[in-house]
């Protein structure tokens, strides 16, 4: 899959993180970007947009990122969801992978990490 064809969903309660992440993705050549600002919206937006790749913050209001990830994986077991958190501990990483995460992103978001994820994704 070409980078420009990837449909992305960004789920984060922070408008700053959504903005920064969207800027990096647009620079990389992605044009279709949907956004959600809590865990409930994340699941709704996933079902509405059927994104190829989802970025999901763990700490979010209404529903945590892990809960949203579990629901999304039930709805679509093939969903590719990258979990993001400032708490890059082993237990968070394990919880994310156990719930079916595609990758883990340590915040604050760095451009090179996003490129690595996109690179892995396009090769799959």
């Amino acid at each position, binding site marked *: 899959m070409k980078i420009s064809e990837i449909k992305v969903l960004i789920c984060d309660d922070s408008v*700053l993180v959504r903005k920064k992440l969207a800027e990096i993705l647009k620079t990389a050549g992605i044009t279709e970007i949907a956004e959600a600002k809590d865990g409930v919206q994340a699941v709704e937006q996933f079902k509405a947009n059927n994104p190829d790749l989802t970025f999901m913050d763990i*700490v979010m209001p209404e529903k945590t990122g892990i809960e949203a990830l579990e629901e999304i994986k039930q709805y679509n077991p093939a969903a590719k969801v990258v979990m993001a958190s*400032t708490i*890059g*501990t082993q237990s968070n990483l394990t919880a994310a992978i156990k719930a079916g995460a595609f990758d883990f992103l340590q915040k604050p978001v760095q451009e090179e990490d996003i490129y690595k994820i996109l690179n892995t994704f396009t090769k799959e």
Partner: protein
Amino acid sequence: MFTQLFGHYLLNKNYITTEQLRKALEAKNETRVKLGALAIDAGYMTASQVEKVHEEQKRLDKRIGDIAVSMGFLTEAQVDELLSKQKTANIVIGQTLIDLGFMTNADFEKALSDYKANAGFTGDNSDDASLAENIAAVFSLDDMNDKEFYIEYLMLFIRNAVRFIGDDFAFAGCTKNPETKNAYLCSQDITGAVSAYTAIGGDKNAFYTLASRYAGEQVDDDEFAEACAGEFLNLQNGLFAVNVSNTQSIELDLTPQVSEKDVTLNLDDGIQVSLAFSFGTLNVIICKN
């Protein structure tokens, strides 16, 4: 960390006002530390010797270092050593205060030697142990329950402030069991085996500037300012959780950040630490449950 600690000392001992400190913090990046201040800091010259050399320089077209050597105040080797320190000097805040006319060389000499002699302060605070000691002394945390928790949290906060916001601040004060009012406040709870309430607040200008510096872009509205300040707090707490997990094998979680306006807090426990930045004062509130 010298700027933050020495700035606090000068405020505390009434050498300068908060406004003078604010102006010096704003100007310090333009300051080049002069040989005289370096010589005082190293203990090679007294303030009156520096004044004499400056007087002499008005009559002679010679460099300060050469004059000091010819007057017998410094050796060539000492001049070389001081010049090599000029670029990395941590006493830049003192030089700025002198340049702005807020302190004389003599005041600087006295303040610096008192500061260094003060029992609570260690001269070198580049390593964690001495930084922890300095923080405990500056904020009088020695009698606190959970002293280690507050010190750990503040050390990380100060490092993050320097890294993501800027080093143009000094410690302005610490209130225990604070009753505090903030025009803008962003808070987040740390939960798990160790739980705490944490927040950053200030007036509109201070809060917006924090937000703008963290985001690296202009901040024009409350929602974006709150998101940026909230992410800074989230980053601080996330790194704190990682540190605690690494050192104590305790897993911590965070709640989503909450932003509020005109908040009055009456805490029975905990502390509020004020950081006097060049753009205004930011309050860091921490209350361990």
